[in-house]
């Protein structure tokens, strides 16, 4: 059994080294602080397209920050109205409508951004990208960030 154990040990070491090498090589290609790391790896964008996507992303980020403020304001307004009332008042209804309007605005901006990013990709990649991003808009409950 000693001979068998030696072969097994060698095989296990080879397997572990192979796995470690794959992980090392793959993770070398990624800058984990970059928001666009996934786009870069998944869709294999060349530098020119990646630069354009980065520009779109940076422009969108300022809009995104504005939207965050709007969401926060409309949410806190609704929260405080709900806390200070015991039934649905016209003010609460109007606050709910305001939240819905903000949500519509946000989804429209996100969609606009997703379309512009997808234009920098190959048609088949753009389809995959749009499918993935639609989950943010159509099924908010399944957002990966909230899981």
């Amino acid at each position, binding site marked *: 059994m000693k*001979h*068998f154990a030696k072969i097994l040990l060698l095989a296990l070491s080879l*397997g572990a080294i*192979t796995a470690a090498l794959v992980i090392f090589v793959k993770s070398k290609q990624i800058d984990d602080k970059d928001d666009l790391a*996934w786009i870069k790896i998944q869709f294999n964008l060349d530098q020119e397209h990646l630069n354009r996507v980065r520009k779109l992303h940076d422009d969108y980020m300022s809009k*995104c920050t504005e939207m965050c403020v709007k969401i*926060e304001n409309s949410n806190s307004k609704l929260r405080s109205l709900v806390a200070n009332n015991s039934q649905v008042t016209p003010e609460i209804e109007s606050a709910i409508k305001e939240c819905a309007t903000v949500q519509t605005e946000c989804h429209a901006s996100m969609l606009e951004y997703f379309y512009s990013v997808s234009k920098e990709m190959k048609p088949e990649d753009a389809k995959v990208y749009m499918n993935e991003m639609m989950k*943010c808009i159509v099924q908010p409950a399944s957002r990966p*960030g909230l899981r």
Partner: protein
Amino acid sequence: MKNDLDKKLHGILDKWNPDIAIPGRFRSDVWTMIAARQEARESTLWFQLSNLIEQFSFKPAFAYATCTIAIVFGLFIGFQQTARIQEQFKSHYVQSVDPYVQTVRGNS
């Protein structure tokens, strides 16, 4: 050194003459018991299996096959792991562009 000790031990044992009556079939009984135990051991599934593995392990094809399987398995694990890392990057990207997720994270 070991041979010297063995010779010494044999010499002492030869001189040793215990005053015990040994049954006539003692020696053959001992050998019969040893043979029976050996047979019982060899008939177990574990012994047969380990014997088979040992025989196989001396063939180069066995070593190559085991190493190949291990490398393929290593590749599989490596790619599985990187797929998980990619999934985390996707999640990171989605969080960065979704103002609702950012608001939830900001509040928590």
